[in-house]
């Protein structure tokens, strides 16, 4: 593709007759929709980060520092709701899945472009409902993002509104999943069999199945809670003849698989970045693809490990403990295959690769501490303590969050046609690593010492760890704002990116940066395996 200049990009051409903002708000182009998600999701991410900063500041010393207990309880609830429902669940699939899944399988768009736009609007409506719930009389929700009954039925805050927002957001997730599954089945380019698909597509595809199969369960659960709050129907509240443990089961039947909705696409991104910068094929393609499906499947069967201390029967406890250990295995398989992919490669550790190294370290800690929590004796001690908080931040933030930045740095030149300052970017990787571990590692220690989570105040022996953690939060959030800063700067002042700055071979690197409206002039015929770098030579000759 020597003549990038001659091709009009999707920024210059629109799917409709409008120009300006309307050409975006009414677009059916998967790439524009991906970018609209990016703006909304990043905005909420920043809100979530600021809330986290405020919580950490409150916790820098015992007793009251900057806010009262009710405010703190509200903030940790909002931090959870925003980070989970508005950032990390939609983050990778809605932004990068939308933008790159169709391109990577050689399609001009997703199967249902209008439905795709509708999903974005549903996301925005859900997000607005979350915001509205903050300002209505009654005050912002204070139940924790897990909405445990009976507290969530007793709380006088705007629980129903916030729950309804999560209900609406669920539909955005379901419809996006539906769209991706259909796209993968129907729109693959000629020659692209299932086992020639890039692994990001595999991962997003596996995720999409969880989205459409698990999300309805939470929708149902939420609806029942709203019914209970509004009409006093006794389903979960024992005062009305209900069962609060039933709520916990129904909640986690969705919310545990949701963890895999968060992490699987990230694993897909890793499987893209490592081959590109190692310039060799992925090690164990089928093992990685199948382990995604295995995680998606076994991930359904481990939910009750969130409830080991709830008074479930001992049989339930050991069965769920055993299954939890089993679900760790496919994640291990992935990590071993990724490291093996570096073996005898030609490694150029540029920014996206450094992010992936960051990921492998942080996510391994997250995964391995999951073993501590999967084991019954240790879980009973550590559940509902800071150990769990540290564990899931290492998995979700250290895993998916880190890969969010990896994906951003990997695909930025393709999405915007500009390159960022690589020196700044590499400094950010290191600062992120230091800030992250300072912020979250002390929480493992506090957890083992017996510091319960969701605590506004704490005993004096925890002070030193809380201080280190708060200082870490300044480094980490400073780094995040620095990243957003230099990326926005690059949009305007960055050097022009070539169509293939990293030497990747999946289909997105065969087309101009940024891509034209319908991605491909002619639909490609796929003859190569996804990570066959012998193509690089032909690609340069094109």
């Amino acid at each position, binding site marked *: 593709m020597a003549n990038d200049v001659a091709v009009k990009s999707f920024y210059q051409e629109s799917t409709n007759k409008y120009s300006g903002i309307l050409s975006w708000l009414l677009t059916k182009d998967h790439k524009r929709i991906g970018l609209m998600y990016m703006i909304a999701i990043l905005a909420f991410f920043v809100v979530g980060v600021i809330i986290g900063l405020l919580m950490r500041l409150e916790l820098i010393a015992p007793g009251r520092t900057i806010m009262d*207990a009710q405010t703190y*309880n509200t903030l940790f609830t909002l931090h959870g709701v925003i980070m989970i429902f508005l950032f990390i669940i939609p983050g990778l699939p809605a932004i990068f899945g939308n933008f790159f899944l169709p391109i990577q399988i050689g399609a001009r768009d997703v199967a249902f472009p209008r439905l795709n736009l509708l999903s974005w609007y549903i996301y925005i409506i859900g997000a607005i409902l979350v915001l509205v719930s903050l300002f209505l009389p009654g005050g912002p929700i204070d139940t*924790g993002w897990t909405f*445990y009954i*009976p507290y969530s039925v007793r*709380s006088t805050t705007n629980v129903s509104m916030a729950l309804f927002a999560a209900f609406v957001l669920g539909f955005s997730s379901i419809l996006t999943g539906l769209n991706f599954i259909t796209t993968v089945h129907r729109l693959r380019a000629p020659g692209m069999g299932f086992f020639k698909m890039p692994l990001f597509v595999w991962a997003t595809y596996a995720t999409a199945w969880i989205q459409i199969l698990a999300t309805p369960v939470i929708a149902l659960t939420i609806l029942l809670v709203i019914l209970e709050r509004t009409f006093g129907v006794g389903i979960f509240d*024992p*005062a009305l003849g209900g*069962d*609060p443990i039933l709520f916990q089961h129904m909640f986690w039947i969705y919310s545990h698989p949701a963890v895999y909705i968060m992490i699987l696409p990230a694993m897909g991104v890793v499987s893209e970045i490592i081959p590109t910068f*190692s*310039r*060799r*094929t992925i*090690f*164990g*393609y*089928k*093992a990685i693809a199948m382990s995604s499906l295995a995680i998606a499947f076994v991930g359904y069967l481990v939910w009750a490990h969130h409830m080991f*201390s709830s008074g479930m029967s001992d049989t339930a406890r*050991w069965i769920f*403990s055993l299954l939890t*250990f089993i679900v*760790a*295995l496919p994640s*291990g*398989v992935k990590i071993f*295959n990724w490291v*093996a992919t*570096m*073996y*005898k490669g030609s490694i*150029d*550790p540029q920014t996206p690769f450094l992010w992936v*190294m960051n990921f492998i*370290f942080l996510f*391994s800690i997250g995964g*391995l*501490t999951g*073993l*501590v929590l*999967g*084991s*019954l*004796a*240790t*879980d009973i*001690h550590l*559940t*509902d303590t800071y150990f769990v908080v540290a564990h899931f931040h290492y998995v979700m933030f250290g895993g998916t969050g880190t890969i969010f930045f990896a994906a951003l740095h990997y695909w930025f030149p393709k999405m915007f046609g500009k390159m960022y300052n690589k020196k700044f970017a590499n400094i950010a990787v290191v600062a992120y690593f230091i800030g992250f571990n300072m912020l979250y590692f002390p929480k493992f220690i506090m957890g*083992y*010492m*017996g510091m*319960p*989570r*969701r*605590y506004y*105040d*704490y005993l004096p022996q925890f002070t030193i760890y809380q201080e280190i953690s708060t200082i870490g939060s300044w480094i980490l959030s400073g780094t995040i704002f620095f990243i957003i800063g230099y990326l926005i700067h690059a949009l305007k002042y960055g050097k022009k990116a070539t169509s293939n700055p990293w030497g990747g071979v999946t289909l997105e690197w065969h087309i101009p940066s940024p891509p034209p409206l319908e991605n491909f002039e002619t639909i490609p015929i796929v003859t190569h395996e996804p990570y066959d*770098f012998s193509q690089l030579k032909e690609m340069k000759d094109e």
Partner: protein
Amino acid sequence: MGISPTTHAESVDFVMLYIVAISVVLLLGITATMVYFVFKYNRKKGHAPVDIHGNLLLEVIWIVIPTLLVLSMFYFGYTSFRETREIPDNPFVVKVTARMWQFSFEYPNGKKTDTLYVPLSTGIDLEMRSMDVNHAFYIPAFRIKEDIIYGKTNHLYFTPKEVGDYDVACAEYCGLSHSAMYTKVKVIHDNEFTTWYGSNWQPQNK
């Protein structure tokens, strides 16, 4: 850590140590290998990359060995957990009531306190109920906790073997003053306990 206040706390610490030791080896192994590859196969060195599509033997090895490791972790975790589920012989039963935001205790002779007093080396059975929402009874030093679910009775068993004062925390979020829902369990010698408790309590055969 000093001396463990219960036998069970020792076994939990052992399970923790076992899993963490294996985890540290795995983490350092993965990280060191990765960093080594990045230097060894750096593009600057000019090696031609070799396409290796996979290796069935390796895949089998790194499924089978981790499987054995996690099964052993499961086993140790489960056997240690079993200790907490065995009801002590002739337990001393204390009724625990949790409400927003305090615990209160009622002893067999009708005595009531808001700090838990228990005699040394006696099996204790806490019969726990909630008056309002969910709480949890958590004794970090004993490494045990159990939720107190509104509408249900949950039990927590332990046998203290060291005299002392230990923190008790609520570990299930329960609203405004959740973080102030602390009390203590005071483990005292039999004779002291008899004096404190009044009548009708005989130290069990030990």
